[in-house]
């Protein structure tokens, strides 16, 4: 390992709308080293990655590459300086072939290599990462899986002779086994005797960091909380404790606490789904009792969203039966189902869960427009609306100046509180939570989980869709695993649930690949 770092950042600072996402961070990346940036949501990891990628510019601080002061003023410049980035959401043009995508942005069109040359260089790069199943250069980017798109991004970076590879939360879309493959790949690139690369691995998962980090930098609320080199002489538990202390500095009880796994026998069945077919859903059977939290696990995009939409009435059902309290919901629309007590807290909070340009007061009543006592003969009664909003703001601890604050001006956690307040209000019988803590900071996420528990305690039937295994294991009494629009496994909550669900997800993924 060379002593001088390839890239070193000093005093890096970046603010968004008055919030310091990064605050005087010093960090150096060496060739031959896998350097983990570890931190909770909102710790500043992604901002740091975006600055390395040239997507964002720091307000203050310096970037040195090979000891020389540089400004990464654009993605193109970062690329030219030898920095390659694998984004969480691959930025490919879906309608173009992989070869075209890989060549995109690589230079002016007259200097672009021929397709055969691109394919040759892709194969060469794939040999470097030791890929067994080569990518098809002519396949449309839109037809590839998340894992393949990720590999294509790595290949693209290698083809441009990147010396530093940034991977932003690369495992979030992968099965546990694919994630292990990725870790091996990073190791291989860092240990390459001819061209040792510097790897920057951004993650919020502690165990992943311990599994592969030569050096771990912990970010916390935009500041560097500490750095650790977990060598062979350091026991894993000690390293783990040290990192936890840096991440949360004494915040208690952060390890996931498995739910008891005891089914509340007293609860009677509230929600019953039988043979639900609504493409891509292909025959879902599920029952949720009062007071029960049923977790729906699985890799994103295996029908979870469609299941929630079919339940809420946003998606037409081809066959099957959905019953709430024994009554069929079949032909009822979204509004009628809401009135019956079937609620859906969408994960796409500003995309569909709320209207950003409308105030909190109206967003709280979004699914009851025109209802008394907030409207009388179709005319709004603002006093009643504002009073309702103020009561909800107090009850759900929504941090906002008042009822007229626009939803778009709320933080993710507070917007989620608005949505939960709306969905849990009077008459709720069953509720679907879609990725409820996705993108929330740790405090908001904890508050949100507590709301979910409270909802179940109050006798609601709760369906919890999440891609966060820890969250599902922590909250759910039972877990079902979805793959390709079907439920492929049913696991009881409690001890051992995490491993069983993880295995089921990998199994489902392998089977899906075998079919494809």
């Amino acid at each position, binding site marked *: 390992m060379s002593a001088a770092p390839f890239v070193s950042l000093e005093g890096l600072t970046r603010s968004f709308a008055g919030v310091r996402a990064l605050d005087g961070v010093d960090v150096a990346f060496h060739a031959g080293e896998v350097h983990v940036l570890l931190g909770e949501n909102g710790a500043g990891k992604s901002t740091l990655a975006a600055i390395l990628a040239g997507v964002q510019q720091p*307000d203050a601080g310096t970037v040195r590459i090979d000891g020389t002061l540089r400004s990464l003023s654009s993605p193109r410049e970062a690329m030219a300086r030898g920095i390659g980035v694998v984004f969480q959401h691959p930025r490919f043009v879906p309608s173009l072939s992989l070869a075209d995508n890989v060549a995109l942005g690589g230079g002016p069109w007259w200097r672009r290599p021929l397709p055969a040359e691109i394919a040759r260089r892709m194969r060469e790069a794939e040999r470097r990462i030791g890929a067994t199943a080569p990518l098809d250069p002519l396949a449309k980017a839109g037809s590839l899986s998340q894992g393949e798109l990720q590999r294509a991004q790595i290949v693209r970076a290698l083809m441009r002779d990147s010396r530093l590879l940034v991977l932003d939360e690369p495992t979030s879309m992968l099965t546990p086994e694919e994630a292990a493959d990725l870790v091996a790949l990073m190791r291989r690139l860092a240990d390459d005797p001819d061209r040792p690369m510097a790897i920057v691995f951004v993650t919020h998962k502690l165990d992943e960091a311990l599994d592969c980090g030569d050096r771990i930098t912990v970010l916390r609320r935009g500041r560097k909380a500490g750095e650790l080199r977990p060598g062979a002489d350091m026991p894993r538990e000690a390293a783990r404790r040290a990192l936890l202390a840096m991440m949360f500095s004494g915040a208690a009880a952060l390890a996931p606490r498995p739910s008891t796994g005891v089914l509340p026998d007293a609860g009677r069945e509230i929600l019953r789904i039988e043979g639900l077919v609504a493409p891509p859903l292909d025959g879902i059977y599920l029952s949720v009792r009062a007071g029960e939290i049923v977790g729906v696990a699985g890799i994103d995009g295996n029908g979870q969203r469609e299941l929630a939409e079919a339940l809420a009435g946003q998606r037409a059902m081809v066959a099957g039966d959905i019953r709430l309290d024994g009554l069929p919901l079949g032909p009822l629309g*979204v*509004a009628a189902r*809401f009135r019956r007590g079937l609620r859906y807290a969408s994960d796409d909070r500003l995309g569909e869960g709320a209207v950003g*340009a*409308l105030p909190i007061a109206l967003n709280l009543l979004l699914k009851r427009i025109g209802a008394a006592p907030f409207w009388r003969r*179709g005319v709004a009664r603002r006093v009643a609306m504002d009073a309702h909003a103020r009561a909800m703001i107090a009850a759900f601890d929504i941090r906002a100046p008042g009822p007229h604050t626009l939803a778009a001006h709320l933080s993710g956690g507070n917007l989620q509180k608005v949505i939960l307040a709306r969905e849990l209000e009077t008459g709720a019988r069953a509720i679907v939570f879609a990725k409820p803590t996705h993108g929330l900071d740790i405090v908001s996420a904890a508050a949100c989980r507590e709301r979910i528990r409270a909802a179940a305690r109050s006798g609601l039937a709760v369906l919890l869709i999440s891609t966060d295994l820890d969250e599902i294991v922590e909250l759910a009494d039972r877990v079902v695993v979805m793959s390709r629009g079907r439920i492929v496994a049913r696991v009881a909550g409690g001890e051992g649930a995490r491993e069983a669900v993880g295995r089921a997800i990998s199994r489902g993924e392998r089977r899906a690949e075998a079919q494809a």
Partner: protein
Amino acid sequence: MIVGPAAGHFLRVVAGPLLAALALTAIVLLLLGVDPAAYFRQVVQRGLLSPSGLQAAITRTAPLLFIAASLILAFRAGIWNLGGDGQYLLGAVVAAALAAPLAQALPLWLAWLACFAAAAAIGAAWSVLPAWLRAFRGVNEVVSSLMMSFLGLSLANVLIKFVFQDPGTTVPQTVTLPVADRLPRLLGGALPTGVLLGLLAVLMVHWVMTRTAFGTRLRIVGLNARAAAHAGLDVPGLTLAVFALSAGLAGLAGAVDVLGVQGNVRADWNPAYGLMVVPLVFLARFNGFGAIVFVFAFSVLSVGGESAARRLGVPNYVTLMIVAILLAGLAAGEVLDQRAARRRDAARAAGGEAAR
């Protein structure tokens, strides 16, 4: 800091763009060889300060106000109904065709009412196709409503020349409504009924959009169609309703113009109010009160501009050019203001940091 944030905001968003637009117009006028001071003096004199000019400017607002109401309703609901010209002219032709015979057969107020109803109905009918395509087939209404507008203009001319042609003249036009049978002027002639109705239409639309459940539903559809579907709103049904109401108001604009001012419709006449009012309601940010102000200002500008054009030999289009430059200037002002707000935020964050 020389100016406070509020003053800076006003400077960037209102005063700056306004002055810049006037300055740019002055430069263009200079290039045309016209004295800008004389031009502006003439515009203000003839459009605002002279009694007859002011009267003309007020009278002209009537159809523009109806069009503004039509556009505000549609745009706030996220529907880009650009078929206003066709809907307007068909409404005008139908009202003109019915007005003269009905005025003889029915009490005058009933005849007017029937004309209004027919004009609104034909306007709404002319929007059924783009409305249906948008609601159930997802076809972008910008193109379809614009196309229907061209067809509507043609149909209006066909109707004038072959169906409603005044037999008493060889000029291709509809039968002229006698001045005695037209909409009366109120307040001793100062306020045409059409203007009062137009003001009512704009204020009504503003009230419906901001205060009623129906308007709130429309706004939700317009602001975030996915949220509307998520909230269980009948998006296709609301889309049809928006088109019908918006096009109906455009049809009413035509009726008001014919019954109040024109008296008949000549073939190949197309004032193109629809597209002219689009930038005005954008300037007003779809706010009814703002729209009233901008429509009046535009009327003054166009009445004065026409007079100045005659006097100084400037093309009529200069009026539209001022509006266009103003629109561009205000958009630029908005961007600058947002940048300034971002800078302030960053400075405040840094200041807060230093204080800690």
